[in-house]
């Protein structure tokens, strides 16, 4: 019993690390643009599909090459989303931007199924051997890679935001787009860079998730978007550290609920929790206006 709890916690933290990467990318876009990008997940999914396509043509390709293709594809798809759905609505309606990003989601999903027709495709795992053993508990190599990647990405992001001119511009735009514009920061350029950065982080997450699930499906797009939004919401809207905590909480609750109640009730519990939290509106959650 206790051993199971420890193992679930370990699995939960590993899942939480992947959610953290996804949520940080989602939150970066939301924090800067004040717009929810529903196509965030599908763009990552398309990157993973490109990597799968490359793997099927060239099975000799190594993990690094596949990761580069997944990240590159995700950034390219993200750039398309930004140009079509967010650049034109920068000053305008948030709802129009969100519905446009949903429309592009439809496009990306059909594009993926046209590229690789069957529903599920195999994706190479990072490591073929048995999971690592840590004092009797199993830890998959992919989970370890996920934890390392998430930690590294968070540290790098913190450094970028707090120590570089780009980060200063991002923080200024988050605080007040008008004031940032007046002090000579190009808001559109900041948007584009943030989009590229978030898509790259998403691409890393996408590659690691595909490698740990050892498959890709078109459903991944919705999965990434939903997990990113859930974690961001649970952590308080638009705060990066909140998104990381929200992601870890999501991973832990999911892992334990799955073990205790099974997958159906796990999802039920997560959505009930989210609804109850939103309705109760604790102060750390309802921090900023988000219309």
């Amino acid at each position, binding site marked *: 019993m206790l051993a199971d709890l420890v193992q679930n916690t370990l699995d939960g933290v590993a899942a939480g690390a992947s959610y953290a990467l996804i949520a940080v990318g989602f939150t970066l876009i939301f924090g800067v643009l004040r717009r*929810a990008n*529903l196509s965030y997940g599908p763009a990552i999914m398309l990157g993973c599909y490109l990597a799968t396509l490359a793997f099927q043509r060239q099975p000799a390709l190594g993990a690094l090459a596949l990761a580069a293709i997944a990240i590159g594809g995700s950034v390219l798809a993200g750039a398309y989303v930004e140009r*079509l*759905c967010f650049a*034109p*609505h920068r000053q*305008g*309606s*948030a*709802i*129009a*931007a*969100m*519905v*446009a990003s*949903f*429309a*592009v*989601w*439809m*496009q990306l*999903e*059909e*594009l993926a199924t*046209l590229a690789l027709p069957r529903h599920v495709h195999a994706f190479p795992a990072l490591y073929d051997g048995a999971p690592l053993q840590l004092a009797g508990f199993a830890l998959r190599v992919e989970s370890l890679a996920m934890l390392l990647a998430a930690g590294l990405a968070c540290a790098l992001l913190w450094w970028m935001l707090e120590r570089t001119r780009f980060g200063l511009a991002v923080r200024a735009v988050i605080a007040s787009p008008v004031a940032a514009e007046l002090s000579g920061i190009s808001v559109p350029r900041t948007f584009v860079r943030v989009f590229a950065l978030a898509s790259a982080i998403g691409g890393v997450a996408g590659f690691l998730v595909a490698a740990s699930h050892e498959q890709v499906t078109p459903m991944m797009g*919705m999965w990434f978007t*939903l997990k990113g*939004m859930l974690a961001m*919401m649970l952590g308080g*809207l638009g705060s990066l550290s909140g998104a990381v905590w929200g992601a870890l909480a999501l991973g832990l609750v999911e892992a334990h609920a799955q073990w205790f109640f099974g997958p*159906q009730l796990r*999802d*039920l519990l997560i*959505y*009930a929790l*989210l*609804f109850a939290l*939103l*309705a109760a*509106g604790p102060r750390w959650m*309802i921090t900023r*206006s*988000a*219309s």
Partner: protein
Amino acid sequence: MDDYTIGVLTNAGLFAFIALSAYLLLLAGELSFGQQAFFGVGAYSGGMLTAMWGWPLPLAAAVAMLLGAIAALAVAVPTLRLRGLYFAMATLAAAELARIAFELLQWQVPVDGEATGPDGTQGFRGIRWVLESGIEPQTFLALIWAVLTAVLALFLALERSKLGATLRGIGEDPELAAALGIDVDRWKLGVAAAAGALAAMGGVLYAHHNTYIEPRNFDIMLGVHSLAYALIGGLGTAFGPLVGVLVDIGLLEGSRVFEGYRMIAFGGLVALLLVVRPRGLLDERVVQWLRNRFSSR
């Protein structure tokens, strides 16, 4: 009419109900990701009443609408204070809860020696009231569009009345509306209940047209589609959501030109359209212009 045309027009009519439901909430300034829940409540409750207990469809539809309104109120009351993305996420969470509840729902009774009723993820088959009553597909299509026309007439009457102006006022600036003495909370609950009943109506007809429903039919894809229909058609008039549905289901699916590329075509069309017309084809300005042309004659 051939069977294919009848099928396309029937589907367009059915999804127009949930598109109008999303539109009604958009008028009141609320973005719901969860109208599919009430569509599902209508489909399941209406289907159960006719298939399991032999109720006539009109009576079952009335009860299903009532249940849709109650379910919508159950979501609207705790989310009354939420705005924007918070509201959207809360409605999405509620709708996913409803979908999982449909997955858990197992309740079958013997009808003519056959177990009939919702069977969890296996879905709910045998909703055959329309077939058993000897109603032709063409007649059912006419019935759907007759109900839809009545709903549209109600909407048009509402929009020309003072109530419609109040509703748009709440949508544009709830604080100002409250300052003018409007009970915004009561209005929002009323709108939520009406939108829930409307979606449930569409759900009842959907279940009886398809004779088979499953929880997956009521996932977030349906909800976001209905929002997209409302927005591309336009927020100026209740004809907007209808135009949105007809563009997607009628034009793209019906014409079969974009076979295999339908989503790429529809998605691109919607995204580009929103760049030019962020409040849809028939937005307020176009509607006002049309109205002026009409009245000057």
